[in-house]
């Protein structure tokens, strides 16, 4: 996996991109891939290659043994052929330059067309397409040069591997404390073989001076991607983290099983935004990423806040429930989601809000859009524990259907264990209005523009939670993803 920056026009990011190599991040980029298959030796090999301490190897092995005893979940509203986990290679270091396309001329023109539509800056295109310019990486994080600036503020933002070496005590304290390896099948798999990811630590009282962003992508065919991200906000700390993804066209199904853990201590707040645009498969449903993600935030301290915003337009399969454990009194959890499925994409996504502390509040705004043969399920759990007096939840769950072959499904689970709690759930399903479409056409707006306008309006509540430049990109993504959905 890799961490690059999102191709956006914000000056700070351009700055970042240009600055990148000044700080001389050096890594041994000898390409290396383990043969397909998973066993203890593979886990040991990964750990050894990353030069990990003994405790982490033990942790991985324990996760691996757990995983062996688990079965892949089958409760989601997804139709998936069984995945052969022994056919997957569990580690891929960067390809050497000679194995890469040498220029954009060698890159799939369809992909370049997509970049064009997304308004990806020219200097970003080669990087995203995996052309051998500067450094382009697969499964190893690119060191970030934000770091020096962030260090001044006391913020640690680095690759997970680096954190293991440089801040082992923090990693050891928090790793698996929100999502334990035994949590679920894919979390266990990730814990055994995770390759890299991001690590963020915001010390007490510090407001992170900039948005932290990573641009994940998958470049190596047939390589599972197993990121591990850990974000810790100490008391009164604040951070906004952006994660964006794009992937080149690939035929093979690719497995992706990430784990993200967030920890917010007293009065801390973490905002985590994702724009996910992995290869969704072609219009016949061939190929595409399988995305099984466990994302969870722990509002450990009183008055802490964790907010998830996601825009999911990619992947053939999405299985993802960014959740909040509202442990601290008066802590707040939020989930804002737009999930779009077109062609043969399937998504089963939603959230879990677990209210434990008293006076905890949560808000869920979910917008599902289905087009083509897409299947889109919202699955959400709101659990109010006995201890959570005066807990509040508001859930709004809207589905929009475009065309006649797609489906929208809603699976809300509400468990209330305290009589003082208030839980509200609103849900709507609508077909994109023929009357809305005609109204736009009658004013001279083309059908394609009308659809993206109506969809954009439908998603407004979520988009406005995104940082500005991300919102612009999200909107463009939605338009590109919906192309050909109508007419």
């Amino acid at each position, binding site marked *: 996996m890799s961490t690059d920056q999102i191709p956006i026009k914000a000056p700070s990011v351009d700055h970042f991109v240009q600055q990148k190599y000044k700080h001389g991040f050096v890594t041994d980029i000898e390409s290396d891939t383990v043969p397909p298959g998973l066993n203890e030796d593979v886990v040991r090999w990964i750990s050894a290659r990353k030069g990990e301490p003994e405790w982490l190897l033990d942790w991985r092995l324990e996760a691996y043994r757990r995983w062996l005893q688990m079965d892949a979940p089958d409760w989601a509203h997804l139709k998936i052929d069984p995945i052969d986990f022994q056919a997957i290679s569990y580690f891929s270091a960067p390809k050497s330059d000679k194995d890469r396309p040498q220029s954009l001329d060698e890159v799939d023109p369809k992909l370049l067309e997509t970049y064009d539509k997304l308004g990806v800056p020219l200097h970003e295109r080669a990087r995203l397409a995996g052309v051998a310019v500067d450094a382009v990486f697969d499964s190893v994080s690119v060191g970030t040069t934000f770091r020096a600036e962030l260090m001044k503020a006391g913020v640690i933002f680095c690759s997970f591997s680096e954190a293991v070496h440089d801040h082992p005590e923090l990693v050891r304290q928090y790793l698996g404390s929100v999502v334990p390896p035994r949590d679920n099948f894919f979390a266990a798999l990730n814990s055994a073989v995770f390759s890299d990811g991001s690590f963020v630590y915001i010390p007490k009282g510090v407001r992170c001076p900039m948005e932290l962003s990573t641009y994940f992508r998958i470049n190596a065919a047939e390589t599972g991607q197993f990121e591990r991200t850990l974000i810790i906000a100490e008391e009164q700390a604040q951070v906004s983290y952006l994660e964006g993804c794009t992937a080149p066209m690939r035929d093979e199904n690719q497995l992706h099983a990430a784990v993200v853990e967030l920890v917010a201590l007293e009065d801390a707040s973490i905002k985590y935004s994702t724009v996910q645009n992995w290869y969704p498969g072609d219009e016949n449903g061939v190929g595409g990423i399988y995305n099984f993600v466990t994302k969870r935030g722990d509002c450990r301290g009183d008055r802490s806040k964790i907010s998830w915003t996601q825009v999911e337009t990619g992947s053939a399969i999405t299985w993802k429930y960014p959740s909040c454990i509202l442990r601290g009194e008066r802590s707040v959890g939020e989930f804002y989601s737009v999930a779009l499925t077109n062609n043969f994409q399937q998504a089963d996504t939603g959230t879990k809000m677990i209210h434990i502390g008293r006076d905890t509040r949560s808000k869920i705004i979910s917008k599902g859009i289905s087009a083509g043969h897409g299947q889109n399920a919202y699955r959400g759990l709101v659990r109010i524990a006995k201890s959570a007096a005066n807990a509040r939840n508001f859930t709004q769950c809207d589905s929009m259907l475009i065309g006649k072959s797609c489906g929208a499904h809603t699976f809300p689970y509400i468990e209330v264990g305290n009589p003082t709690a208030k839980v509200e759930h609103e849900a709507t399903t609508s077909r994109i209005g023929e009357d809305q479409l005609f109204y*736009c*056409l*009658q*004013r001279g707006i083309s059908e394609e523009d009308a659809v993206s306008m109506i969809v954009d309006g439908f998603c407004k509540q979520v988009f406005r939670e995104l940082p500005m430049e991300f919102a612009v990109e999200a909107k463009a993504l939605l338009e590109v993803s919906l192309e050909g959905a109508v007419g």
Partner: protein
Amino acid sequence: MKESEQTMLEIRNLHATVGGKAILKGLDLTVNAGEVHAIMGPNGAGKSTLGYVLAGREGYEVTAGEVLFKGRNLLELEPEERACEGVFLAFQYPVEIPGVNNTYFLRAALNAQRKHRGEPELDSMQFLKLVREKLEILHISDDLMHRAVNEGFSGGEKKRNEIFQMAMLEPALAVLDETDSGLDIDALRLVADGVNRQRSPERAMIVVTHYQRLLEHIVPDFVHVLADGKIVASGDAELALKLEEQGYTWLEQGGIKPLAGANPA
């Protein structure tokens, strides 16, 4: 057949069905530039259908006849092309589009039309300047511009918004479908005033209404009675008054059968 420059719309023997049911059954109508034609008639006569057929709404199928707009076959154009060519329909029930800003919507519409005509698109400054001009002419406050398209608008606000859109888009032919429905007298005056300010020698209007009330405020040059899918009577504004006094049954007594099957043999 006259093909003078000023002929805006020429409808000949128009037949149309909706869901397989015949609604328009041989409608003829000629509208010249600068004229305001009122179309009145009982419920179910096909008044709204006429508007939708002209605008090209899906599901409204023309089975016979022709429609020439500025001498050109209107029926072969897509709905958005008709709009760009200058056909505007003020909806009886303007549609809400949640989350889409009214200003944004209107700018997208105007620029789509300008692009179609080969004119440069307006940037946001130019556009807002135009918005202010038009708002002032129509005596409309700008609070509607900050809200989502028709979302949460009162009946009067929705109709005013339609008239405002018309002022911005400056169509050659405007079809106003039951613009008076759901309005109290003050709102009606305001809307009618907005329409009157847009009367011009270059623009034709078709005002579809059930009641004569609107025509006191928008005085038409011609009044047509549509019944059972055809124009059964035409006249000047006096005809509307007569209809108001005597009701649509007066036409029946005059030997015209406005409703299919009303007088089975």
